[in-house]
């Protein structure tokens, strides 16, 4: 089998620049052959090498007392949760595959992140997902496409996660036209393990055999990593040689077999085959181990005949692992894989020469210094556009709307409406851990084997990030920490997914840099190191770049079962308080900037996002945990999109089982200025809590000790009504109407 000739066109087609080609020639001391060129092209894609984002990623705080494995060291970071137990968690994007084939794109995204977690030796215990689509409202072709993408993605996540038996316990979904044609599909998975069970992805022990296990290799998703590192165009569909199809059943077997294998003690190193498949796993294990790895493609189990080394190395077939085994223990390995009916093969050995060498029988197909390939990708400092100063929005430029109509309209906005339609398609109860089901500020999960209670959330308000990426980044972290605090948790660490447009465009790169610096500053402030994450650039459709979307996945721990808190009201007669200001004084005149009210009613994404004072925010979180720990509050819900009025409505609507509310509220809001501004502004650091009437004194004493602003808004009512008065004006809504708007909006659009 002879390799095609290396022409400038061939090089360009691989996305390799002339300078990069020279670098390759230098590394090899010769011209690469066609297969080697392919290997370099995937390893040096943005997806695998982070060549455009690495200098930015270095800005994240990555250390902390609880950090056992740092970001970037292995497949996922590992965090200590006490008593010898640890968690491994990470978020991953599958945006471009999902744009082309939503069901399989999302499904294989889930499969990939789950493998990342069990590769660390951890048993995956739950998943989350953060999704963005174009608008799903109306009859336009674009809306139809967006609905198809949304339905397909949710079905794909549901298919894979449900089948493998890992509960999907939370997430977020937003709709905005900047994502039309380029949806975001970010999936996160968390696993638990004992400290001593941390598995390494290093090829250690010269002479150790290298095993391939899992699905046979086919021509699926050839060079998917390179595909993810390009803009989507009309031709993207034809671009793909073959879509990757996920097989969650196989992965379930692979998961159980790998965990059994790791427990047996015969594994020296283990690595999943994700993006860039066999290429990435061989050169990364060798590079981490400071060794070399030699494999023979003839020995690799294949699904199709006549595959070339190029195709075998670049295939992204799913559900495959590379396992390096202590010499002499091959029999155990065989026994376990046979028990689980998994294809496997001994395909190579660990060498001492630092090379990634791929044989095709007797012929050398690839020979590249492994560490150079894995770690010496070029790094670019992209051009950054000059900073733009966000222009505050004057409230006077916004006509005053009527709250009676605005509240139901906001509740029915697909980005704010209940995501019941989504999470009911996910098995969120398997493994008997979800003690707070989807529908509250954070998901809460009991890890029985460790005797720990974890809370997790994903957050990012991309409108804020569009208007001011730095502030938006900070707010994403603050909101995540706030959601955890509302659930009674102390935040532990963060994983992030940086979804941006083409970094070659200076204004996009500016957004990336600003957002990362904002995230980094906030993570440092809240004591939540970044344990890993994912970068997805080139998120553009013909209409332009997406709104910058640096999604934050944050995990926290809840000390005692009594400290688990939820957002729904729990008893008629309880007093309702707002922790925080009704309207942040510092932005009284511009309090609607970036709000969903402005977007929904006036179709504008304008102004400056709400001001965040991190010190205030942190005091709020500490206060919340104190109030929850002391048993002073019965519910807690933060004010986010839609502001105070939406938070109040949501606390009513979540007062019953399964998201069906039965408790109303009677509320009076004091404050100067326009009612619509008071009700729908999105000032930060605010939480609506309910307090049993007998405990109000103690509650207020605790709040005043903390010196936090607080106001009594009213009471929880047994009636099925929400009534709000501001000054002279009063509005009333029946819960049934609000439930119709909020609970059913997405289902009606998707019917």
């Amino acid at each position, binding site marked *: 089998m002879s390799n095609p000739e290396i022409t400038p066109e061939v090089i360009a087609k691989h996305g390799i620049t002339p300078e990069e080609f020279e670098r390759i020639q230098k590394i090899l001391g010769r011209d690469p052959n066609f297969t080697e060129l392919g290997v370099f092209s995937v390893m040096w894609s943005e997806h695998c090498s982070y060549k455009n984002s690495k200098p930015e990623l270095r800005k994240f705080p990555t250390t902390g007392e609880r950090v056992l494995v740092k970001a970037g060291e292995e497949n996922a970071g590992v965090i200590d949760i006490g008593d010898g137990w640890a968690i491994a968690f990470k978020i991953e994007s599958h945006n471009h595959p999902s744009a082309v084939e939503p069901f399989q794109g999302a499904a294989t995204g889930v499969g990939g992140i789950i493998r990342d977690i069990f590769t660390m030796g951890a048993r995956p215990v739950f998943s989350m997902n953060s999704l963005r689509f174009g608008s799903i409202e109306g009859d336009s072709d674009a809306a139809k496409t967006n609905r198809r993408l949304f339905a397909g993605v949710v*079905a794909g996540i*549901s*298919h894979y996660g*449900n*089948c*493998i*038996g890992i509960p999907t316990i939370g997430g977020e979904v937003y709709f905005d036209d900047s994502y039309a044609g380029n949806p975001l599909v970010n999936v996160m998975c968390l696993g638990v393990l004992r400290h001593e069970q941390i598995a390494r992805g290093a090829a250690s022990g010269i002479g150790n055999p290298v095993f391939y296990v899992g699905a046979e290799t086919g021509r699926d998703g050839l060079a998917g990593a390179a595909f993810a590192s390009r803009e989507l165009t009309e031709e993207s569909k034809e671009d793909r040689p073959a879509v990757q199809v996920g*097989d*969650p*059943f*196989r992965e*379930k*077997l692979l998961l159980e077999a790998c965990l059994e294998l790791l427990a047996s003690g015969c594994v020296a190193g283990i690595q999943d085959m994700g993006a860039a498949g066999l290429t990435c796993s061989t050169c990364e294990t060798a590079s981490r181990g400071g060794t070399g790895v030699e494999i023979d493609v003839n020995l690799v189990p294949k699904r199709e005949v006549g595959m070339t080394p190029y195709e075998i190395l670049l295939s992204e077939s799913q559900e495959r692992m590379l396992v390096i085994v202590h010499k002499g223990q091959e029999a155990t390995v065989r026994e376990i894989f046979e028990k*689980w*009916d998994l294809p496997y093969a001994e395909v190579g050995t660990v060498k001492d020469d630092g090379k990634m060498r791929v044989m095709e029988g007797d012929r050398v197909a690839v020979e590249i210094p492994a560490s150079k390939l894995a770690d010496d990708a070029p790094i670019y400092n992209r051009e950054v556009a000059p900073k733009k100063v966000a222009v505050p929005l004057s409230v006077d430029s916004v006509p005053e709307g009527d709250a009676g109509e605005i509240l139901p309209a906001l509740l029915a906005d697909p980005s704010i409406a209940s995501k019941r339609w989504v*999470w*009911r*398609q*996910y*098995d*969120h*109860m*398997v*493994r*008997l851990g*979800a*003690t707070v*089901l989807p529908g509250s500020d954070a998901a809460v999960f*009991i890890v*029985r084997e460790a005797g720990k209670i974890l809370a997790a959330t994903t957050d990012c308000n991309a409108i804020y990030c569009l208007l001011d990426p730095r502030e938006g980044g900070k707010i994403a972290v603050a909101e995540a920490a706030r959601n955890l605090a509302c659930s009674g948790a102390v935040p532990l660490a963060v994983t992030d997914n940086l979804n941006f447009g083409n970094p070659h465009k200076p204004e996009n790169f500016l957004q990336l840099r600003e957002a990362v610096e904002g995230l980094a500053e906030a993570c440092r402030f809240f004591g939540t190191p970044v344990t890993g994450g994912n970068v997805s650039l080139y998120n553009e459709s013909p209409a332009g770049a997406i709104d910058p979307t640096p999604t934050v996945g944050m995990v926290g721990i809840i000390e005692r*079962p009594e400290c688990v808190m939820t957002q729904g009201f729990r008893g008629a007669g309880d007093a309702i308080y707002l922790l925080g200001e009704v309207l942040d004084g510092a932005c009284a005149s511009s309090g609607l900037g970036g709000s969903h009210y402005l977007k929904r009613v006036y179709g504008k994404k304008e102004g400056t996002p709400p001001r965040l004072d991190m010190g205030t925010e942190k005091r709020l979180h500490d206060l919340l945990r104190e109030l929850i720990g002391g048993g002073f509050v019965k519910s807690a819900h933060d004010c986010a999109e839609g502001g105070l009025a939406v938070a109040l409505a949501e606390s009513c609507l979540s007062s019953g*089982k*399964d998201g069906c509310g039965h408790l109303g509220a009677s509320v009076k809001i004091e404050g100067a200025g326009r009612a619509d501004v008071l009700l729908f502004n999105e000032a930060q650091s605010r939480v609506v809590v309910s307090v049993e009437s007998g405990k109000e004194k103690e509650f207020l004493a605790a709040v005043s000790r903390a010196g936090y602003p607080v106001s009594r808004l009213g009471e929880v009512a047994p009636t099925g009504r929400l009534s709000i008065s501001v000054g002279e004006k009063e509005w009333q809504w029946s819960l049934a109407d609000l439930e119709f708007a909020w609970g059913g909006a997405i289902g009606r659009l998707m019917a």
Partner: protein
Amino acid sequence: MRFAVIRFPGSNCDQDCVLALESFEGVEASYVWHKDESLEGFDAVVLPGGFSYGDYLRCGAIARFSPIMKAVRGAAADGKLVIGICNGFQILCESRLLPGALIRNRDLHFLCRHVFMRVESAESSFTGAGEKGAVWNIPIAHGEGAYCAAPEVLEEIEKRGQVLLRYCGAGGEVGEETNPNGSVGNIAGIRNLEGNVFGLMPHPERACEAGLGSTDGRFIFQSMIQAFRKTGATKTGEEAA
């Protein structure tokens, strides 16, 4: 009382079942691998939920041919208690140990949520610890859980009181609005004619502790334990004598 929890490749509620069962006094639950062929020494069998063999082709269709299923048939013929939950129900139907079949949910989506079901008869080894007419709150989680059967079969199982659980509203009302998946007659669970094999789509093991939202699932396991202590235990007693 010793429960066998069968593990097919792709089962994923096996651990949950063991956890729930072991919360009952005097109950021991162990995994049995699908490649095993014997259920010796077990008093009852659980076919847990999940996606056996990926549920490819049809839910439960391939699991039906697993080596262990011969032993399950044997246990059923011997009068031992056999319960199939969700995928286990599908396997029992595919194996013809229970009549009928389970097809795609009416709205074609997987559906995971708490639902209500009414106890149609408490004269059974699976509902005996409850009361006729009681309303239980137990979650479902399935994509293919709409029960169907030929009209003459339906008539037969209704007549003989084989329907033990029916989906309903919080107040026990049975109708189209309280039918989550399109099952005929709102059927959530049925037993065989002999009364020792039971299949249901809801997951009782997910409703066995207050922290998970409901404890109504306990009635079902409690019923099995009671039934065993009444009849099974005496049977072993006789055998011993």
